[in-house]
């Protein structure tokens, strides 16, 4: 056995021990530091996690008590806006009306296009409406017109637009939103094919956009695409 094989064996066992949670606190931390910079080690760990998860088939499912789900939702969603606990429905209605008006405005303002496949629209909005971007896909030109109606990128940050296609494993970047509130983004043919049933999202990213090809910052706004 060569020294490389031994080192590889050592890492295989180590990644397995980590996946099983058998390492002590110091060993765990050291392993995690290596994980951050060694893709091979991450891959080894991922394989172990996948294998061991197979053992979970031996664990019986047990329905948790009924009170648990509302407790979790309360903890996650109620705490976010304690100042206006009773206005949410009215607020939602207002949001829907605004969205409807926006969609109508778009329809009214943009010149009618020859039919060439469905035209999609989306209102990509933050929950508190601190960021609102209206998007309209022009099937004739293959472009997405975006109109930033509220909010913008934080200082030294950019907004990146994503398409989450129905059934897709990961979001696809449609590019960084330009500084101008109104802009057009040209879409590749294969992306246009993914729009039906998809969702648009905007994330907060470093200048130049996500370095990984996947959202790295907070997802700030979301909106489902619908056909006109």
């Amino acid at each position: 056995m060569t020294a490389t094989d031994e080192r590889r064996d050592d890492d295989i066992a180590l990644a397995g021990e980590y996946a099983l949670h058998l390492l002590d606190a110091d060993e765990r931390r050291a392993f995690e530091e290596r994980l951050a910079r060694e893709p091979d080690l991450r891959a080894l760990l991922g394989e172990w996690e996948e294998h061991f998860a197979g053992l979970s088939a031996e664990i019986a499912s047990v329905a948790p008590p009924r009170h648990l789900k509302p407790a979790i939702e309360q903890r996650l969603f109620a705490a976010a806006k304690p100042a206006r606990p009773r206005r949410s429905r009215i607020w939602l209605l207002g949001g829907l009306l605004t969205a409807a008006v926006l969609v109508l405005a778009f329809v009214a303002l943009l010149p009618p296009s020859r039919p060439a496949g469905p035209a999609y629209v989306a209102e990509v909005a933050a929950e508190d409406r601190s960021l609102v971007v209206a998007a309209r896909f022009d099937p004739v030109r293959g472009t997405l017109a975006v109109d930033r109606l509220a909010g913008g990128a934080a200082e030294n940050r950019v907004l990146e637009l994503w398409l989450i296609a129905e059934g897709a494993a990961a979001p696809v970047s449609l590019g960084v939103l330009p500084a101008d509130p109104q802009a057009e983004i040209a879409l590749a043919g294969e992306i246009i094919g993914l729009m039906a049933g998809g969702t648009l999202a905007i994330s907060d990213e470093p200048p130049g956009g996500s370095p990984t090809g996947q959202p790295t910052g907070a997802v700030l706004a979301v909106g489902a695409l619908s056909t006109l």
Partner: protein
Amino acid sequence: MRTPADIEQLILKVGLGDRNAFSTLYDATSAKLFGVCLRILNNTAEAEDAVQEAFVRIWQKSHRYGMTGNSPMTWLITLTRNLAIDRLRARAPRTADLGDVPDMRDPGPTPEAAAIAASEAARIGSCLDELEAPRADAVRGAYLKGESYQELAARHGVPLNTMRTWLRRSLLKLKDCLSR
């Protein structure tokens, strides 16, 4: 809504802040994840806390799901199991089994189990069968019950270093079998 693709779709939507998707994901997976917590913590109240924490974490971390490369149930189970084991390790030396948890052996296929690739379950099972029984039992104990090296060594009546050597060798054999 039970195939891996369905669960994945839900996780992605949750990653975008979709509360309805979160609710559906909870309904589809909470029984499996609660089962995982119960098996590790062997205490209903603690398992409730752990699974609650797990779903909070799922809500917060699901936008990063795509980066892990894990299959969806593996991602959910790994996240939940890690939280449960952190809780287990943080408490005083393991209390004796409290007897308030029913036998957790799987009574049969459950809807959620279908989302764990059946082939993966069969592979790890048959590869564990290739190990000597006590060694396979040690790996199972570490994964399913979160047993530490100390607990495994005590249960098998061997010194701690021996247990570690055993287990590391078992892992290499297991990996060898799983890669075939």
